[in-house]
């Protein structure tokens, strides 16, 4: 059940940062993963190429969210244990985000040109 749920979350929540949407199939298929564990995003800072996907997985027994500080990408819903959230990196730049449930949890995405 957990696996099915994760897959459905992944499908529903894939979209692009900052409106600079790119067709994921035409770009690198590299997966950038961020674990949410012990109330922290790991790695806290991730550097990705424009067009690459970024996937968060919640490994805590506590729900967490992924919310752009500057509202540059759509926020995730509350992720329960083992649920995932995926976005596709858009325009180059630095994007900060946090967990709106536990705002001490912050992270940074650096998007560089592909």
């Amino acid at each position, binding site marked *: 059940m957990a696996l099915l749920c994760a897959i459905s979350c992944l499908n529903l929540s894939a979209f692009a940062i900052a409106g600079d949407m790119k067709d994921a199939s035409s770009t690198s298929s590299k997966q950038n993963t961020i674990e949410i564990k*012990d*109330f*922290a995003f790991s790695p806290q800072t991730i550097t990705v190429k424009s067009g690459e996907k970024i996937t968060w997985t919640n490994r*805590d*027994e*506590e*729900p967490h*969210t992924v*919310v752009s*500080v500057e509202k540059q990408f759509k926020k995730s*819903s*509350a992720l*329960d*244990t083992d649920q995932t959230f995926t976005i596709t990196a858009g325009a180059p730049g630095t994007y*900060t*985000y*946090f967990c*709106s*449930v*536990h*705002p*001490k949890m*912050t992270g940074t995405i650096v998007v560089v040109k592909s």
Partner: protein
Amino acid sequence: MSDYISHDHEHDGIDRRGFLQCMAWAGTGLLWTVSGGVLASKTLAQIAKAGELLPATDLSFLQISDSHIGFNKEANKDVTATFKIALDRINAMPSPPSFLIHTGDITQLSKPEEFDTFDEVLKSCRTKDVFYVPGEHDVLNDGGKLYRERYLKRVEAKGSGWYSFNKNGVHFIGLVNVLDLQAGGLGQLGDEQLEWLEADVKNLGTSTPIVVFAHIPLWTVYPEWGWGTSDSERALGYLKRFGSVTVLNGHIHQVLQKVEGNVTFHTAMSTAFPQPAPGTAPSPGPLKVPAEKLRSLLGLTSVQYKQGETALAVVDSDLS
């Protein structure tokens, strides 16, 4: 009664709250005549000294917190059962509390079915009057809309759901500090709520006992884990002049108490699962303990106000 009214004339005139309270007193005629003489003789001295409108009388109520209905992980696979045990304890009290206060995290994931389960189980509680404030788990995806629709029916809530009410001369204030949280920050009340609070207590006499309840602690317990409220100092500033302030919080699933001047801060146990003491674990996630130990770390909090005593008595009892 004329003593109160003449006293009132020396101050800013009777307000709506005071008027309604007087009417409530008038409505409880039996209580008034049986115990009124004693109450009046005791409170008139306080009234003269502190500008109090109304006497405070003995009162007991109960705080429950962090029921997390829907949580089913190792730390407690049946939080509904432990919540039921807590209600059984309330039902078994020789003198039932006047009402309950739930200090948030009713549910684990804000799901309608979790709220349904909570409401269904709560029906078994003999004490029917319950006042709520939301936890962050109750407002996860809709900014608290569902929570507000269900749990604020019997109060005149403002803004995102804050309110106040009076019981037996004690002024209760329910605050919301789990919404619109800022990156990197703690719990937050926000300007609109703080302005409301300032106005809400403005005309109260300094001897009015105040009880403030909110989910996240209104004192800085452990900021590294987000256990505090960024603008709580401002809120407490409006309450400094009062002789008795009791602050009741949840969120951290353990009892911690601090007394600062006339203010007593207290956090309650959860009915679902314990959390680690500040800084003793990599994160504040659910604390797994041996099954036989679990109920000794869950519990509820009984609060009693005795007329003539400044501080309210706050007593915790576990579910073992």
